[in-house]
């Protein structure tokens, strides 16, 4: 009797662990941390559902540049800034609730398009170094944003609300109160499960965005992006306008990041004018990587797994720190250093895998030559 042929990819356990080291690490951290935190299941469920609604849109906006082979778009902070500018104007005009959010999104769109175009064009001049370049563009644009918000708003750009303007007469205050907009989308369709509030409307919006991404992959532009992501030269020879496709991917990502930031801030209810956007790219990228994504491969599943695991760690870390050492601040530090650590680990693993694949390809080539 002959053995049936097993038509399965031959992956060793070691390889499986290495390929999924980040999610596995986070599952372990959460498994140890949850009992130590002492939080109830309903509390954790409530937190995770809230954070899932709050962050999904932002993290999903990272998928398109990955598809186009541009890596993780640290330049999504540009979109976040555009979203915040929209929210500042809307607050000044006292437009509240869902209409306020829609108006902020409309205002943010042209700003995001301009910033995305600028970022994409620069990234085309820095092929192969997109991530670090977009990271630095984020810092550069932060300075421009500060100039815009701190000096031009109230002086050159009319802002009438005394609640927004600094007492000196120009510049926006440290915090903008979004109480009139707070959870207006999350609570649009009230629904509770096991004592946890479910942001149904936000999750519906996220689901629609997921469907748009799935549909987009099948469009001509989506196929072009995937082709560009696989091999730029081959795509160019196939008649695809590589540079234009790459710029478009960054524009789309920036615009969606702007919308994501508006959704994020309506959940928080307060806008830290000079800080809210600065770390959003870092945490969104960390969440995506925790979900098992890599620099060249990310999908919707990675987004949701990542947000759940990463934010579960975020929720429990301060309490675990306090319960273990009597210092909640330690947990705060822990979650910050883990965020940076995850990105570093993912980048190192990506490079290792790439080099290994290159070495194997080289060895195979040598064998064929012999």
């Amino acid at each position: 009797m002959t053995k049936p042929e097993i038509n399965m990819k031959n992956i060793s356990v070691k390889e499986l662990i290495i390929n999924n080291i980040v999610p596995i690490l986070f599952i372990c951290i959460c498994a140890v941390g949850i009992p130590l935190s002492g939080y109830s299941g309903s509390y954790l469920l409530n937190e995770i559902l809230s954070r899932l609604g709050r962050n999904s849109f932002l993290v999903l906006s990272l998928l398109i540049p990955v598809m186009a082979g541009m890596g993780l778009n640290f330049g999504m902070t540009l979109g976040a800034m555009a979203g915040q500018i929209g929210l500042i104007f809307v607050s000044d005009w006292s437009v509240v609730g869902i209409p306020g959010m829609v108006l902020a999104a409309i205002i943010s769109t042209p700003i995001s398009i301009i910033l995305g175009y600028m970022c994409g064009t620069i990234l085309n001049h820095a092929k192969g170094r997109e991530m670090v370049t977009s990271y630095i563009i984020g810092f550069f644009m932060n300075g421009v944003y500060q100039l815009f918000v701190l000096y031009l708003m109230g002086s050159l750009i009319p802002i009438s609300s005394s609640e927004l303007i600094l007492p000196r007469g120009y510049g926006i205050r440290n915090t903008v109160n979004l109480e009139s907009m707070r959870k207006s989308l999350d609570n649009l369709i009230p629904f509770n499960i096991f004592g946890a509030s479910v942001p149904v409307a936000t999750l519906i919006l996220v689901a629609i965005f997921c469907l748009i991404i799935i549909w987009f992959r099948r469009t001509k532009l989506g196929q072009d992006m995937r082709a560009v992501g696989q091999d730029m030269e081959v795509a160019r020879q196939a008649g695809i306008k590589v540079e234009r496709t790459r710029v478009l991917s960054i524009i789309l990502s920036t615009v969606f990041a702007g919308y994501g930031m508006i959704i994020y801030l309506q959940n928080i209810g307060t806008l830290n004018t000079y800080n809210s956007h600065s770390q959003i790219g870092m945490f969104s990228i960390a969440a995506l990587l925790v979900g098992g994504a890599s620099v060249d491969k990310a999908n919707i599943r990675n987004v949701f797994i990542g947000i759940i695991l990463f934010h579960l760690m975020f929720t429990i870390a301060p309490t675990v720190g306090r319960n273990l050492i009597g210092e909640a601040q330690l947990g705060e530090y822990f979650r910050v250093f883990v965020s940076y650590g995850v990105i570093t680990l993912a980048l190192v693993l990506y490079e290792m895998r790439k080099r290994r694949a290159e070495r194997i390809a080289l060895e195979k080539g040598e064998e064929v030559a012999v």
Partner: protein
Amino acid sequence: MKVTRKLFIRLGAVLVIIILGVVMFFVGKQHTILIDNFSSGDYRALDEFWVSVDGSDYLDMSRMMREQFVVMGQKHNISLQWEDEASGQMLAVSFNISIPLNEDMMLLSVPTFMADMNAPQSTWLTHFESQATPSSSSPEDNTVVLDDTASFSSF
């Protein structure tokens, strides 16, 4: 020909978005309505009445009371209920108001409205300037936090 069609579609899309923005501005604009039961000139304050704005729960209002309702949009429905002194019966009236777009705060004088319900809206619904005095500013008030790590705790 194809380019022109494409251009028109794009311009149409931009126009639709602009119109949507304008509609959102009108629909989402927040206003404050102050329901006022102070005596005003010849019009004496009511002893007691109940008020509801846009179908909210009725709020009991006595003499010399002023209540604030924060509303969204320009058109609103006000419902009043009061007890007729002569017959002891409960009477009710419901009417619509339209707040000018540029007005943040409007004062609705119920005694003036009750004196003549057919009077134009401008007689009993007037602009109100908030009396809140701006807090004195110190140099610290003008400082902003530009620390990148300041937002960590909000995540």
